[in-house]
């Protein structure tokens, strides 16, 4: 492995302006350790999603550096970018599965960056990949679902497939963008348990965007509060007090 391996994620001076002059992210500085669960909380529109999407370049940063285990992701293009993206797994709020494909195909699509077009079309994934896909499906609690079409699954089941797909990449970093916002409260807890459990046992750091502060407190070891495009709180869940929440979210009544 290259030098700088396992330094985790280091973000320096990250700025994002969708409209010039109106930055959504105002110079974020952040260091995520190569292990552990980090939750990012904050009101809608404060840039939580933008922050995550800048890391895997689904959104282009305006300025700054993003170092994943020593490699700066920001200047990457083309093949280099794809290679880097293989190392980052992402779980989405709307699951983003390919509905008409089977569960197995969806999980294996995590390895699309490693096979040729012909192999992908003929579904000639390496045997090791297929075996691992099956064991991942077991691990996320969908043991006999491999050949079902993705659109036949419930929301919670689809998110499990999404998690399996992300882990299929054997990533160095796992990002989750509001993974529970489309789920009912009980399923949300199940999914959070699954994600945090699997990433811990795989030794992969997890960064989760989350609306629900209780879930954040329950599952994360570190909470980052954002407001107005800046980090206003950074600490363990026990340290998160009402005045911090007031600062992050504004307003009194809901506390």
């Amino acid at each position, binding site marked *: 492995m290259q030098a700088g391996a396992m330094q985790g994620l280091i973000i320096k001076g990250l700025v994002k302006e969708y409209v010039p002059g109106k930055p959504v992210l105002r110079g974020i500085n952040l260091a995520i350790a190569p292990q552990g669960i980090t939750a990012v909380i904050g009101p809608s529109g404060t840039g939580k999603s933008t922050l995550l999407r800048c890391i895997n370049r689904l959104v282009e940063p305006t300025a700054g550096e993003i170092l994943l285990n020593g490699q700066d992701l920001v200047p990457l293009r083309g093949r280099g970018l794809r290679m880097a993206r293989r190392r980052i797994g992402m779980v989405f709020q709307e699951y983003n599965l390919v509905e008409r494909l*089977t569960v*197995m*195909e969806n999980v*294996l699509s995590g390895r699309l960056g490693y096979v040729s077009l012909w192999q992908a079309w003929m*579904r000639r994934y390496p*045997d090791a990949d*297929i*075996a691992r*896909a*099956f064991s991942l499906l077991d691990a996320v609690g969908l043991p006999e679902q*491999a*050949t079902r079409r993705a659109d036949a699954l419930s929301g919670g089941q689809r998110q499990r497939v999404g998690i399996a797909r992300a882990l299929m990449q054997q990533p160095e970093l796992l990002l989750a963008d509001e993974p529970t916002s489309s789920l009912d409260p009980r399923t949300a807890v199940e999914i959070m348990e699954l994600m945090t459990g699997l990433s811990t046992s795989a030794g992969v750091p997890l960064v989760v965007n989350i609306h629900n502060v209780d879930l954040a407190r329950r599952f994360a070891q570190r909470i980052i509060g954002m407001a107005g495009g800046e980090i206003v709180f950074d600490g363990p869940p026990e340290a998160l007090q009402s005045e911090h929440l007031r600062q992050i979210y504004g307003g009194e009544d809901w506390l």
Partner: protein
Amino acid sequence: MSASTLRRRAFPANWSARATAFGLMLYAIYAFGQLDITWARLSVGFGEAGRFLARMWPPNFSRAELLIEGMLESLQIAVISSALGILLALPLGLMAARNLAPLPLAVATRGFVAFCRSLHYVIVAILFVKAIGFGALAGVAALTIASMGFVAKLFAEAIEEISMKQVEAIRATGAGFGAVLVYGVLPQVASRFIGFSLYQLDSNLRNSTLVGIVGAGGIGGTLFAAFKRFDYDFVVAILLSIIALIFIAELISGRIRALLR
């Protein structure tokens, strides 16, 4: 577990998809052979195509009067056959609607209307040319039948979709059949009727440019003659005019449709 078993568990074989793909490939090879489309012919053809394109450019508009005369005749054919076709489609559509007409009549009319649509309009045009002579009359007759078939079918379908409650309400006031039609049926279908009438007018405009190829009047005849004389630059001029006409007609009919809503 062996690799192949694993694979089979992961990707159950989709035999119908495989069969279709394979079948299509085999068919393509077979049909190419049947139609005698060989590389030799194709390469000769590409050479010809190059020569052909060279002769087509620049477009030759010098015979403008001939061009305009032909276009005008096509326009006339299109307008008249649309008007006639739409007019005839009104009673036909009413007779073919199963909620307004007695069932045997509706079925018979539907059959007739389907028959009008079944033969390609160029074939109908040729038959009319042979029956009643060259010229615009044959073109008008052919396109009228095609228009009748199209508009009557859509009209009947639109009528069958109306809410009968409104019709019953009008009937309950003691109105006669005509009034029931005008106040109960027509308001519900009027805008759709205008929509597909305009569509048919557009369609006839396209088609009228072609019926001339078999002698039924319009620019098609001029086009065919130009092809036969190898006047390809005139051909291109004609084609460009046709495309321009169709384009303008689509613009206008789009505007009209928006206005008449």
